[in-house]
């Protein structure tokens, strides 16, 4: 059977790419050091497949067809469509893994979930900024799991916990011996296209990081369901972190770095969950 080799998370603020040349040395230094450490840990875990949990930023989906969850099941996906990212991450395509993608979907249906599927997804900055910045020597096969974190109504935090457990179950039941990692991207606090754009909610970020270190499912669920409606809209992407957390069984995590990077409009966190690796 396959093995869950680790769970990771990182922010993906687009200004990291769009404004890369004009960011201060301090911000660039934090971004580089944090992503590189994450990339080092990821490569040490030697994943064959990486399940990347992310939101879609109006690239694959629109209001006429907006899935709450969608799994990429194709052998190949498209690289970033954003013009500001292509010079940094010039990948027209990225490898998928149709075998595990389909197994994840089959497991989901068997367990009472009903995700949409995509045989060829566009992987926007949510996936590609971490891949670019981690400077991976070889990019593993990517199985994207898109979660609607952009437009109400969004999945509940409880459902995100269920999805994390589902992904772990699918990994553990996938025949073949592959090494599979989970990577949640997005968050932490930020506000986009709202009057509070550019402001961060550092207490929210700190509370999230504290909870991922040891709080139980009920505490995380209740806290986030209460707080998310009161903070910037970008914080909804913390759902990706919840899925990464739940996949690893909530055994605590190592915070690689957190910094409220006002230059890129995001409270940026970088973390690896503890587990069996």
């Amino acid at each position, binding site marked *: 059977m396959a093995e869950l080799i680790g769970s990771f998370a990182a922010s993906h603020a687009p200004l990291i790419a769009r404004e890369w040349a004009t960011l201060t040395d301090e911000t660039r230094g934090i971004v580089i050091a944090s992503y590189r450490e994450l990339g080092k840990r990821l490569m040490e875990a030697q994943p064959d497949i990486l399940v990347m949990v992310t939101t879609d*930023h*109006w690239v694959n989906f*629109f*209001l*006429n067809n907006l899935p709450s969850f969608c799994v990429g099941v194709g052998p190949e996906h498209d690289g970033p469509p954003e*013009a500001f990212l292509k010079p940094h991450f010039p990948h027209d395509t990225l490898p998928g893994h149709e075998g595990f993608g389909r197994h994840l979907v089959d497991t989901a249906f068997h367990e009472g979930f009903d995700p949409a599927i995509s045989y060829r997804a566009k992987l926007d900055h949510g996936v590609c900024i971490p891949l670019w910045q981690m400077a991976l020597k070889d990019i593993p096969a990517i199985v994207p799991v898109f979660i609607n974190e*952009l*437009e109400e109504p969004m999945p509940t935090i409880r459902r995100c916990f269920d999805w994390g457990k589902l992904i772990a179950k699918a990994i553990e039941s996938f025949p073949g011996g592959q090494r599979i990692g989970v990577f949640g991207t997005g968050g932490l606090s930020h506000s*986009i*296209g*709202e*009057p*509070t*754009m*550019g402001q961060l909610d550092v207490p929210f970020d700190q509370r999230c990081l504290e909870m991922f270190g040891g709080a139980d499912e009920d505490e995380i669920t209740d806290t986030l369901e209460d707080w998310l409606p009161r903070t910037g*809209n970008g914080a909804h992407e913390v759902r990706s972190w919840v899925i990464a957390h739940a996949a690893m069984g909530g055994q605590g995590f190592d915070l690689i770095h957190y910094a409220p990077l006002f230059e890129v409009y995001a409270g940026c966190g970088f973390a690896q969950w503890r587990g069996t690796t």
Partner: protein
Amino acid sequence: MTDYWLSKMFYDLQSAEMTQAWREDRAAVMQDYLLSDEMREAVLNDDIAAIAPHVNAYLLRFYCAICGMTDAEFIDSLQPLAETAVASDG
């Protein structure tokens, strides 16, 4: 309340061809979408505070960027909404 056609127009403007067409003749582009008179007027007048409640915030940001607004100008344009929120809060 979400305005589907206004959102659809902003979504479609993400393509380079549509962005170019928008910059050349926005009124012509708008003819292809079933916009209400109120939304058409708000777009033509760059009344971002009037548009904002009817479109996803991320799409709005993208739209304002292709219209040439800086982030600072965009944030300024949204401030009437903050004042409205404070007023309605009491």
